[in-house]
């Protein structure tokens, strides 16, 4: 079993899928240029040498163009893995993603499918308000899109491979602080979670969450970076005798609701941690589901820990305040006890 970073695991997934299926190709900005980084975060590094520029397709700086190519190719029978350098640029593609890709199967009575993967880095990493957003909730809201958010190398590889094989458009959100990219593409404050990835073929099914830490007093749900904030908080709370269960949903659409509900039925308390702004966020939806389906098991009000309702700040000190910290998670847990 090899130890690798999320960036390396994603690269291996892409490589294996491209070898397995000639219909798979990558499209994005600076993903295969000579002397480049392999995309913004090294995920496609070296793949153009192996597969050539026809399957590692560099585009002009036009997200609309990338989306058009990917969606059109998918409808025509190929299996594109598209990416944007920063998730924030998905907003350029909104018409294509929401009006076209998400609705095509429905509008065609199931005769047309859009087996496209769109990878997008998210998270606030000292790059200012337009390169920092956590966009998951914009897309979990759209019927017709699947949304995954891997937080470990194992899940990154297994989920990306499942996404490539899925006949629906799948958005893969990756966190910039979790890539573990080395050298000039490593973001300040990166966690670099390096994890074991099996040598043999495996898939992580879309729609299955996982309990990252078992506990009995409170359930903490976190994804991407906030999963690690939740795990850190749980570790510190354990020293106080507070037993926190930490859940990583891994897939946001379709959500593994039962995993969360089952945990809350056990613990009676729920804290949801996310990096997005509070209002209308993903955490609000988790809170609503639990309030509707496990109300009588709740022993305390549900608490959301999120970024405030402001754009992400540029100044490092303000950013540290903006992104949910372990301390805020601990404080939220205490408020439920």
């Amino acid at each position: 079993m090899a130890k690798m970073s999320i960036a390396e695991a994603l690269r291996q997934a892409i490589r294996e899928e491209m070898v397995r299926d000639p219909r798979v190709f990558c499209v994005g900005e600076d993903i295969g240029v000579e002397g480049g980084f392999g995309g913004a975060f090294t995920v496609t590094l070296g793949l153009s040498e192996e597969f050539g520029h026809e399957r590692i397709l560099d585009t002009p700086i036009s997200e609309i163009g990338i989306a058009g190519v990917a969606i059109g190719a998918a409808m025509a029978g190929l299996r594109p893995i598209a990416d944007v350098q920063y998730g924030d640029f998905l907003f350029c593609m909104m018409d294509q993603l929401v009006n076209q890709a998400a609705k095509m199967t429905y509008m065609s009575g199931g005769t047309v499918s859009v087996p496209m993967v769109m990878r997008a880095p998210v998270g606030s990493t000292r790059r200012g308000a337009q390169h920092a957003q956590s966009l998951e909730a914009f897309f979990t809201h759209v019927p017709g899109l699947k949304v995954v958010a891997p937080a470990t190398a194992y899940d990154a590889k297994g989920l990306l491979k499942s996404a490539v094989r899925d006949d629906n458009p799948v958005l893969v959100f990756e966190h910039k602080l979790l890539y573990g990219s080395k050298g000039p593409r490593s973001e300040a404050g990166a966690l670099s979670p390096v994890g074991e990835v099996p040598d043999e073929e495996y898939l992580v099914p879309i729609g299955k969450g996982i309990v990252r830490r078992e506990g009995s007093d409170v359930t903490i749900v976190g994804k991407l970076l906030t999963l690690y904030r939740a795990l850190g908080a749980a570790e510190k709370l354990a020293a106080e005798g507070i037993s926190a269960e930490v859940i990583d949903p891994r897939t946001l659409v379709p959500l593994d609701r039962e995993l969360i509900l089952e945990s809350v039925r056990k613990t009676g308390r729920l804290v949801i941690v996310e990096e997005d702004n509070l209002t209308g966020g993903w955490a609000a939806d988790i809170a609503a589901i639990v309030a509707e389906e496990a109300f009588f098991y709740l022993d305390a009000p549900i608490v959301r820990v999120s970024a405030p309702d402001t754009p992400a700040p540029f100044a490092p000190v303000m950013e540290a305040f903006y992104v949910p910290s372990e301390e805020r998670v601990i404080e939220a847990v205490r408020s439920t006890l």
Partner: protein
Amino acid sequence: MAHPVLVPPLGQTVDTVTIVTWYKREGEAVREGEPLYAIETDKAVLDIEAQASGVLRGVTATEGDEVEVLRAIAEIATAAEGGTVGTTAEAADGAPEVAPSESSVAARAVTPVRRGPRQFVSPRARRLAEAEGVSLEEVAGSGPEGAVVERDVRAWLERRSSAQETPPRELAAPAAAVSEVVVAQMGAKLAGAPLVTLDVEADASALTGLRAQLAAAEVEIADTDLWLCVLGRALRDQPALNASLEGDVLRRWPRVQVGLVVDTGDGLAVPVVRDVDQKRLAQLARETRELRARAHEGALTAEDLKGATFTLADLGAAGIDTFTPFLDAPTTAMMGVGRIRKGGGAADATVWLSLSYDRRLVDAGRASRFLRQVAQLIEQPYRLLA
């Protein structure tokens, strides 16, 4: 205003008591009806309940102190004094009797923060309380915003079960108070509940035979114990009638606890026989004998009278054939049993059963089915073994 915490008078022979323990600390929030402290007399150890809600302060007696009855040993400051709000504007509006004093400020500093006077209960705690038959009025909250949460109900249950494990304490309570409780209760019931009574005459031959056989085997039981045994089974099978009214809330209970109407000589009392469906006849017989004896001595305690989920009046020993039971609320139904008459008709022995119920809470179908099952169990007592 502050309510003084007075050492209660415990009968003519008790002048002083010893404080065993305080369940609340100075400055802690207290709810009316929850145990505040325990005292020991020469006869018994007793929990004393708080008579008001507020903040405990001015505690002058500590554990181990011997204090005279009717002496004030602390006070309970109500929300207006020691509670959470007390701005000048509100003082003008709400006109509290006492301006916030230094001591009330101190009390506020250690009082759990509450947003309002309402007692919150978490859904999980409410669910557990209903499943375990716990009255939430008796549980103090320790959760967010002072809410009653699961651990509070569990702690209460633990106290209850440890109380049940210790040998029954000899509880002192003046007979007068018992009779007041009963009168007040019965009066309240009669005023509110629209009653319906169903009657049926059951063949009691088999049961009389059974009792004779038990007597021959030296198991001494009264007719009442047989009725309790039958009711325990029927109430377990048909829990719709194992219910009581709390305020406007109808609660069905998992435990079957039958209030037994007892003639004390000075009036009626309704002590409660616990877990009737779980006990063997001989045990029921022991317990009813003991309750009757205590009722006659005027030694029933408030605890003995609490928690009935059904009521039984057996006037057989009084020589009454049949009568209309009137409901001892808060139970929703009551069974009246007359005397067993020999040789009425085809049967060797018969008995009249009358079921009174509050028709707002029980429908005639359920009531009839229940009464039918009771009669059937009496006529075919072997069914109790099935």
